[in-house]
């Protein structure tokens, strides 16, 4: 992938060549953000729920060892086979061995950001296994041979005309037809055959319950259930951070998850898998892949509370105007930018800089992760470790200049684009055209400038 060699700023520039598309992308995600607001405001105890969710996750992380072993024990009692995978290779080998055991070279897979992170599809392809992503958005990007650009809305960067052209080639829909209904229906018909014939289904896991050994998978399309209930073998891949202690804690998380993600009150399906069907198998693969290291980083461990709702992306002025692919990581946006450097600090040194530090991400996060503060802390570490490019360092020290000279990038046109290209993270004040989209439920205690200066002093 040559894209890997380019950093966020360069990739944003590519995305920004098509101004109309950028505007559309920006507005669409902002619209999703507004739906989230409406749903959140409809729940008077919203803030208390966020607080509770965050505290439950904090507790779980502080007792993770015991919750993992309890979960394993209960799951095994339920008739589930539990596997452990330290990293991508181990995980992918387990999946391959299960496919081999089942005597098939075809798999179906519902949405799982973890398997994106572990590059499962590519691995299986090299082994001669065909994987079909059954979620519509994931199928679209799979046919386009590109990664998802958003964890909840995988094909959000694509226009319906492009999808129409894609489906014309692959599914034989009428040429020039870009009706979302018709295209969805074509995918539905096409996917039926996949569901009915494939023997192995892989799904992600939204929540794993320690006390019962069950796990919950949420979808709107019903694709995870279609796959899991029709296959002989259901493989569920989960990161170690997916645990919650008790079944009734699901109430807290299910109330928050979809309202934060899309503004729906709950996903269409929230399926609780406890035992396999008679004569069938469920395998859970518990994956570390750097999470235990992140758990040990005091400043960053809260990132493991993430429930992958995508709200921080939808609200992020940089994400909305640079697109998911500019983050060159399986998870884009603010949360991706704090998770990725843990995996490879050098490779992802640019990501913590791809932010205005406006704090909107932290304000919408349903589990109250201090995302923007972690972004700032990563910058310190990356500079200290010598991974920041000279331009980035210069831009960092030049920040106050630009902030106090709004004329440099006040206009939405050329100057704004210049900023985006050369120092996309500095456009964080009220003079910026993005500012109109920025909405903080609570007034910040210090202005960005004060905050920045204060923090810099503390860290230097």
């Amino acid at each position, binding site marked *: 992938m040559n894209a890997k060699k380019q950093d966020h700023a360069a990739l944003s520039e590519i995305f920004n060549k098509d101004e109309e598309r950028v505007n559309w992308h920006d507005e*669409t995600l902002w*619209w*999703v953000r507004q739906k989230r607001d409406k749903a959140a405001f409809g*729940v*008077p105890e919203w803030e208390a729920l966020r607080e*509770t969710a965050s*505290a*439950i996750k*904090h*507790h779980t992380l*502080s*007792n993770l*060892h015991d919750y*993992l072993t309890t979960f394993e024990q209960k799951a095994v009692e339920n008739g589930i086979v539990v596997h*452990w*995978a*330290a990293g991508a290779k181990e995980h992918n080998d387990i999946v391959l061995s299960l496919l081999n055991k089942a005597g098939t070279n075809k798999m179906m897979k519902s949405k799982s950001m973890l398997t994106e992170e572990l590059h499962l599809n590519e691995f299986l392809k090299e082994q001669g296994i065909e994987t079909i992503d059954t*979620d*519509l958005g994931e199928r*679209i990007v799979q046919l386009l041979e590109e990664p998802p650009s958003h964890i909840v*809305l*995988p094909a959000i960067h694509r*226009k*319906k005309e492009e*999808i129409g052209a894609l489906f014309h080639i692959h599914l034989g829909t009428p040429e020039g037809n870009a009706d*979302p209904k018709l295209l*969805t229906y074509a995918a*539905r018909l096409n996917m039926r055959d996949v*569901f009915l014939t494939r023997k192995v289904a892989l799904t992600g896991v939204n929540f794993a319950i320690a006390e*019962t050994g069950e796990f919950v998978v949420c979808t*709107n*399309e*019903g694709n995870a*259930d*279609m796959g899991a*209930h029709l296959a002989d073998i259901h493989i569920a891949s989960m990161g170690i951070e997916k645990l919650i202690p008790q*079944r*009734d*804690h*699901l*109430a*807290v998380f*299910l*109330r928050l998850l979809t309202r934060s993600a*899309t503004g729906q*009150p*709950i996903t*269409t*399906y929230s*399926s*609780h898998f*406890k*035992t*396999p*069907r008679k004569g069938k198998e469920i395998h859970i693969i518990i994956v*570390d892949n750097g999470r*235990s*290291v992140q*758990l*040990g980083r005091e400043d960053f461990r809260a990132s493991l509370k993430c429930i992958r709702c995508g709200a921080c992306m939808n609200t992020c002025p940089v994400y909305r105007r640079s697109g998911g692919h500019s983050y060159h990581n399986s998870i884009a946006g603010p949360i991706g930018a704090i998770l990725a450097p843990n995996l490879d600090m050098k490779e992802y040194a640019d990501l913590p800089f791809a932010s205005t530090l406006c704090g909107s991400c932290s304000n919408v996060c349903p589990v109250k992760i201090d995302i923007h503060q972690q972004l700032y802390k990563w910058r310190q570490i990356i500079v200290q470790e010598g991974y920041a490019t000279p331009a980035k360092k210069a831009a960092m020290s030049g920040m106050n200049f630009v902030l106090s000279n709004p004329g440099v990038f006040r206009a939405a046109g050329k100057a704004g684009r210049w900023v985006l290209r050369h120092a996309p993270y500095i456009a964080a004040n009220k003079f910026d055209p993005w500012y109109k989209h920025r909405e903080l439920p609570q007034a910040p205690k210090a202005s960005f400038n004060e905050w920045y200066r204060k923090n810099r002093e503390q860290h230097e």
Partner: protein
Amino acid sequence: MSNRDKILSAVKQNQPTLVSLPEVAQFDKYFTESITEFKKVCEGIGATLHFTDSYESIILLLEEQFATARPVVTSIPELAAINSSSAIFNSPQEYENIELVVIKAQLGVAENGAVWITEADVLERALPFITQHLAVVLHKDMLVATMHDAYKLIGKDNYGWGTFIAGPSKTADIEQSLVLGAHGPRTMTIFIMGTLL
């Protein structure tokens, strides 16, 4: 060291100092188990609601709305009359051509329009997904206000599999245009059973 032991020992070493598990507050003063609220939310997520006080009227309505040559399957004994006589299935795949599935829902949640069903309510786990249309029968007394109330009722139930279903399957993956009928049912009908005030 096995992967398991490697992971567990790293977790043990790196996990923060133990903090206590918070109590989940009682939030029910904001939401009520109101049927009007439930109906409004259900319609907002694309489901259709009918109030009824007898299985006979459900049969009449279903026959009128789903008159079709394709099979209908129900696990509710009182609705056996609508079961297609040919409906004997040995594997979930054989449900491929089912037009309508009618099942009982154990409870409904007013705040989000979801109904809870478990394996005990379906003949096959795949059934409520593979069908073109889904209908559920919910007793009006089994409506709760919030998800907290729902899990209080579900409690420590020993189901093998259970799910909340909220409306027909849907997607907005193409330009955020909402389309009902993704991979699961294209419609969802909810019958609220019990005499209403």
